[in-house]
């Protein structure tokens, strides 16, 4: 899932200030926390309220798209909604925003979110944690299914470092030390010897930015 955090309402209201008629586009895809129809309606009401407090009356329409990052799924439903719309406020991640920019060349699109990371939901704690760094050279096979690139603060390939304390990371005691997790898990699986294998240096140039893949 792509994890996003909502921008402060003031920042969104500032970005909307040149416009009156706005389409709010939710996304039912992988964005977490969910940014679907509920979020779109809630955003419309909050902005209407916030606008009124600033002495500004907006007109909102809301829509949600199955996967905002997919131009084929996004273009058609958007086209039916954009009559008289001056701007689209996207509740999706940066991919969704850019897809809308691509399928609506004549209408400005604004982001309502800051896109943070590829992460998973720890629902019991109501938190989302980064899990994958999209490094292009997956080593999960030898690290017990736990990624040190995304989950170690230093992205160490040989951990833990001296800052690992009681299974937690020195930069934030709320966060687990990824290498502590890796070693415990490999120990449990009886695969600790995997860490003794000599591996060639990682190729960090596997994905040349901007990434591109032909299928």
């Amino acid at each position, binding site marked *: 899932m792509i994890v996003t955090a909502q921008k402060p309402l003031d920042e969104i209201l500032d970005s909307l200030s040149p416009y009156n008629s706005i389409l709010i586009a939710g996304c039912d895809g992988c964005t977490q926390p969910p940014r679907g129809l509920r979020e779109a309606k809630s955003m419309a*009401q*909050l902005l*209407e309220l916030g606008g009124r*407090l600033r002495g500004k009356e907006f007109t909102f329409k809301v829509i949600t798209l199955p996967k905002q990052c997919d131009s084929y799924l996004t273009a058609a439903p958007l086209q039916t909604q954009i009559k008289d719309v001056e701007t689209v406020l996207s509740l999706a991640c940066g991919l969704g925003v850019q897809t809308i920019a691509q399928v609506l060349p004549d209408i400005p699109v604004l982001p309502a979110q800051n896109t943070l990371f590829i992460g998973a939901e720890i629902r019991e704690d109501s938190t989302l944690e980064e899990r994958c760094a999209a490094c292009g050279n997956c080593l999960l096979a030898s690290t017990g299914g736990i990624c040190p690139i995304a989950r170690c603060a230093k992205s160490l390939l040989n951990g833990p470092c001296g800052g690992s304390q009681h299974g937690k990371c020195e930069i934030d005691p709320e966060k687990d030390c990824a290498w502590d997790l890796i070693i415990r898990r490999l120990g449990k699986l009886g695969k600790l010897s995997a860490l003794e294998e000599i591996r060639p240096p990682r190729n960090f140039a596997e994905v040349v930015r901007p990434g591109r893949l032909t299928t």
Partner: protein
Amino acid sequence: MNALDKESTFAIKLNAESCSKCAACYSACPFEAISKEPETGKLLLDIEKCQVCAICYSSCPAKSITISYYDMNSLTRYLEKAKDEYGSDSLVVTCRGTNLDRSEVEQLFGISEFVPLSVPCVGRIPAEVLLEAVSRIGIKAVYILACDEDYCRFERGSATARLRVTAVDALLEQLGYGKDIIKLKQRSLKVRADRNKCISCGNCVFYCPYEAAKLEHGAATFDLELCRGCGLCVSLCPALALDLEHWEGDRISTMISDFSREKGRPNILVMRCQWAVFPEFDEELDSNVHVIDMPCAGRVDPLHIIDAFRQGIDGVLIVACNEDDCKSKKGSKEARRSTAALKKTLGQIGLGERLHFCTVAPRYPGSFREELHRFTDTIKSACTQEVRQ
């Protein structure tokens, strides 16, 4: 406060002087709040475990339990008064958990004129009240709507009522008042899912405290046998694909719109769990305070709160049970979390203090009014500041 003074603030008391130590209360209590001293047989109440269902009160043969809400005297006094007021000799008793509309009574019981009585659990009504209603007050027919027994928020309340009705009905017949004077029905209110709106996100599967939700064939499906109607999944569904019978989103929205048209200053909306606060018969709140009784704080939908502010409500007070008392496991906890998140967002446009979450319990009868009073003061001063600005 010493122990005795403190006890006087409790909603329920066991009176040792008149207690016959029969321990009927001890066996009836669904929450193990009453214990028995092994040597003396004395019965002791642990108020922190008590949910004030009053099943003990209605079961006590020695009448040695005192209770704050819906006690025998106030019930009979109400019936005497209401019989004239409503000009009817039919009585309709409902558990508030069934959330029965006046308009539904005709469909359910085939009568249109009746004396209404809504109580938190019908298991709390002593047999004596039913007997008196018929024999002395002149009620000719009693219709009772209880919750389904596996849906009863007080575990045994509905079952207790069923057994009692059978006994009282038999007694009334023997006394010559006729057959089937008391008619009992049961129902429960559950989730409704719209497959066409479902996006298969699985939120309901995780949040349902009763494991009633499953993702099957690309959409959420609910085992209604397991659903207990807390409404938590409804308030959290990102796709707005769920609704709760009798606490439908539209129904609540209409109530909020009606309230917001009233020009009380400050105009306050209270969304309270119906198990956290038991209203008194004559509950009179200030005219600027509008209450919506919810099936659980978990059904409080952030969209309704924002909508209330949008429509001109000045302050919204969310009243939940303590987490330990929550009748639907996670409702209070999730309501606290989602209200805190919304409060933070509202703070970004200067409305943070207009929303407040609190927990109260019927075992302390004054606690709701205290919270409401404090909140009203906060909102009054916020409104005054706004006018100054």
